[in-house]
């Protein structure tokens, strides 16, 4: 648990994630592809940031690097004041466990565990006991109060994604990464999920970075970053879906 006690006091207060001059190159020589070409980014605590961009713009790569799932070719990333690009696998695993939550497009729940077991899985893995009150309020918030003992196969897609969000929030991570969280849902259900993400930031001050290609999704964010050809080309604050679409059509 060393990392949890370790947040660097010298780090600028209120900065959850900080990325400096990130580049990411895949392959070598003639066939090399530059997915990111020098991205600068800061996410303040309590902020909901959406990353948008057309296919191949590098938005997924950026998120993977910010979350420590991939390493940049150059540049630095720090989460809660800890420089993560040079961490060993086990330290990185600890960091993920203590500071990062994930929501995936395909939910990725364990089919043999029920909803509540899936939610507390990160705590189970790190050998911690869940805080009952927090868990109850979280499940209530996610509308899963009466679905605790249901297996994923007995839940709808939207309910499964709610379980996944609860699983991401249960550790009260420094930052939550959501990768196309509505990509696999119909529009009504997707809307409910977006409301939940917005609500978690508003209610718990949950710092969130969401990668999406849906204008409607981006519109819930406090700040929208537009990525094209590996660079952040535009930034909007509190935009409507129409604003987002306008920017996007300009990029394509």
């Amino acid at each position: 648990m060393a990392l949890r006690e370790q947040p660097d006091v010298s780090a600028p207060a209120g900065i959850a994630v900080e990325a400096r001059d990130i580049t990411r190159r895949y392959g070598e020589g003639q066939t090399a592809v530059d997915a990111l070409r020098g991205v600068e980014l800061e996410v303040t605590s309590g902020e909901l940031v959406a990353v948008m961009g057309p296919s191949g713009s590098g938005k997924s790569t950026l998120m993977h690097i910010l979350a420590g799932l991939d390493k940049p070719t150059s540049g630095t990333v720090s989460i809660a004041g800890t420089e993560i690009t040079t961490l060993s696998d086990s330290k990185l695993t600890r960091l993920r466990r203590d500071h990062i939550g994930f929501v995936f497009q395909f939910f990725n729940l364990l089919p043999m565990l029920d909803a509540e077991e899936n939610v507390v899985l990160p705590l189970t893995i790190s050998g911690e006991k869940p805080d009952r009150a927090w868990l109850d309020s979280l499940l209530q918030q996610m509308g899963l109060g009466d679905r605790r003992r249901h297996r994923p196969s007995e839940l709808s897609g939207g309910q499964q994604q709610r379980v996944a969000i609860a699983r991401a929030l249960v550790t009260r991570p420094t930052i939550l990464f959501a990768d196309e969280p509505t990509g696999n849902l119909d529009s009504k259900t997707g809307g409910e999920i977006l409301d939940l993400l917005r609500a978690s930031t508003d209610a718990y001050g949950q710092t969130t970075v969401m990668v999406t290609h849906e204008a409607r999704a981006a519109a819930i964010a406090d700040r929208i970053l537009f990525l094209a050809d590996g660079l952040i080309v535009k930034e909007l604050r509190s935009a409507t879906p129409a604003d987002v679409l306008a920017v996007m059509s300009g990029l394509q």
Partner: protein
Amino acid sequence: MIKVALKGLAGRKLRAALTAVAIVLGVAMISGTYVLTDTIQSAFGAVFTTVYKHTDAIVTGNSAIGRNNNSPTLPPSFSESLLGKVQKLPGVEEAQGGIADYAYLVGRDGKVISGHGAPPLAFSVHPHGDQRFNPLELTSGTWPAGPHQVDIDAHTASKDNYKVGETIGVVARGAEQTYTIVGIVQIGGVSSLGGATMTIFDFPTAQKVFHKQGRLDSISIAAKPGTTPAELVHEIKPLLPAIAQVQTGQAKAQQATKDTGGFLSIIRDFLLAFAGVALFVGTFVIANTLSITIAQRTRELATLRTLGATRRQVLGSVLVEAFAIGALASVAGLFLGLGLAKLLNKLFVSLGIDLPQAGTVFATRTIVVSLLLGTFVTVIAAMRPAIRATRVPPIAAVREGAVLPESRFARFSAVTALLTIGGAIALMLLGLFVGNLSTTNRLLAIGVGAAAVFVGVAMLAKTLVPPLASVLGWPGRRYGGAAGNLARANAMRNPQRTASTASALMIGLALVTLVSVLAAGLKARFEGAVNAVFRADYALTATDNFSPIPVAPANALSKVGGVTIVSGVRGGEGRAFGSRINLTGVPGDISKVIFVDWAEGSQAIPSKLGWNGAFVSKDYATAQHLAVGSPLDVETPTGGRLHLLLRGIFAPPKGGSPYGDVTISARRFDAAFQNPQNIYAFVDMHGGVTAANTARLTAALKSFPEAKIATESQFKHNQEQGIDTLLNLLYVLLSLSVVISLFGIVNTLVLTVFERTRELGMLRAVGMTRPQVRRMIFGESIVTALIGASLALPVGIVLAFMVGRAIKYAAFTLPWGQLVAFVFAAVIVGLLAAILPARRAARLNVLEALQYE
């Protein structure tokens, strides 16, 4: 379609290879068995052909009660006067008499040089006579001449480093004598016949040491030019007494080869039975592996259907894939068998069965049987998964997370399983207990029944997996944290898969349990019998615990001060009521050292047998409808007829009888048999068992190294060594099946890890460490193996109980220590099986795993 199937196979090399391992090992066992036994057979054939090359005809002793290849008893010798008559025949150019018997060589340590279960052969030669009949060749030195010289075989000479000019001890009929080695010999081009020691005397010395003055064991004859071997045999035949026979040299060589062939075919069938078990386990592994791969390819198969492939084509593509795997695996197994043959031979040597070998024989039959069987078994095992594959609907191609539809019969599975088990047990009971079945039918019923029991239990296993995994996974859940908990949940997640994987292990472990429980039962009964029977201070037996011993050592012990009784049980074979019986002979005082219950008569019967008296076991009396006073005619190997009167009937203890079917007085026995031998003898001394008494008896046996004394507990222990040796051999052979099922667990886990790639990525993403991932896989593997063990132990115990009841000689005793050891063995199997899959799972790149489709 075939192209698609084969390309798919090429694209899944690891999976194909893992599937193939089970078949490779099973086929290797078959091919190895054939190669080994063929090689030995051909070596023997070559030896015998060489040995009888210049012999046109040969006269040998002929047991009046018929030949028995499995008996170590030598045929009777005949009068030397026959030689003179044969020599005078017009067609005979040359005829030479010979002696063949058993004699032990004694090493420098004063102990008998072991022939590793092969008999200690002894031959005579005529150093100054015609050498054309001599089966031996000198590799150094000269032929023995005179009463103080011998030659020994090259195998012993090189193994124990004996050279010409050194002395060596030899035990023939009486006490050990010392001889000078004057030559080293080989036979038919090989240094030894299956590890048998050879002692060569000159002819007169051989007659003397084996107490065969005026007698012969063989006459080798060469025909005059113009006389064919067949004509020669025809000329000789009228001269022969009943206890001698004549054959052409060629016929004798063929017969000798056939005799060893009979012995070899027992070994071959024995090994093939284990190869069959291994392949049977292999079919479980293959069926399971293919089921998993097909489940994982649901979307791919559905895509094929949307592209217009028919169900028949889907079935065909799966079977073609299985055929290709089976054929390739069989070829690999065939050649691996060549290596395995050498390993099997080493196994037999280490257990004391040394077989001669020359050039490796790789027969066409070996190739055909190995390839056909391996391929056939694979295709059969693929049938069920292939049929399931045809039920994949085309819509599955576009559906996220589509799963293979359940079999239509799935919901009847528990009932079907119970019916199968019931039928299987009924079939086994039929084979075990119903009278008048031929041995083949009996073994077939038991074998098929046992196989069906395994199939039935495997079917039932699906239902048993969730509760078993829940219980067996409890320690992991309690002490293994999240990893242990997930391991347990994973094991219960797909009950069918876990059940099939565990069932493969169940078969091997159940058979191991069966033999271990049976062996424990045999030992318990045997010990009970010895406890009931043994009334002496010491027993006298052969050093190897099982060979009969000459009477001389017992006579030597009777001269030791303080000895009050030495009473031995003579053993031999005879024929009564048209069938072969074990005939024993006892002195009048045997009841003082051996106690048996009497159904008719009393402990005094042995002392009242006289010349014509006999007693029989209760079973024999019942079988032949005998009562006290019944006449009883017994034929001896030398053609004598003993007209006996039944004086008593004894009831032997269940664990074995100290006496044969029919017992006569030792005096009568010694008169009827050429070379009377004791199976064992018993000794009483003043003071009973004491260190001093033991030392005195041991000292008296100094010149009889083929014999040793034992106290009651030593005697039991010694006699049980045979059971232990057999048990170890069975364990080693069954371990092949366990190894195959281990690969089955590896297969399942590798495929499961592969299938759960994205899930593992998620677990790592939410903070599971690599060691935790490894622990999770190890946990699942161990739980699976333990499920196998917990199915295996009850099945093995039930089978042992049934077989034990049938063979009567086994009590029902559970060897707890060994059963616990088998559970630990299962845990070790689980640990070994998880190494590779756990490493793969832990090494998954989190990002790639998360994006994995």
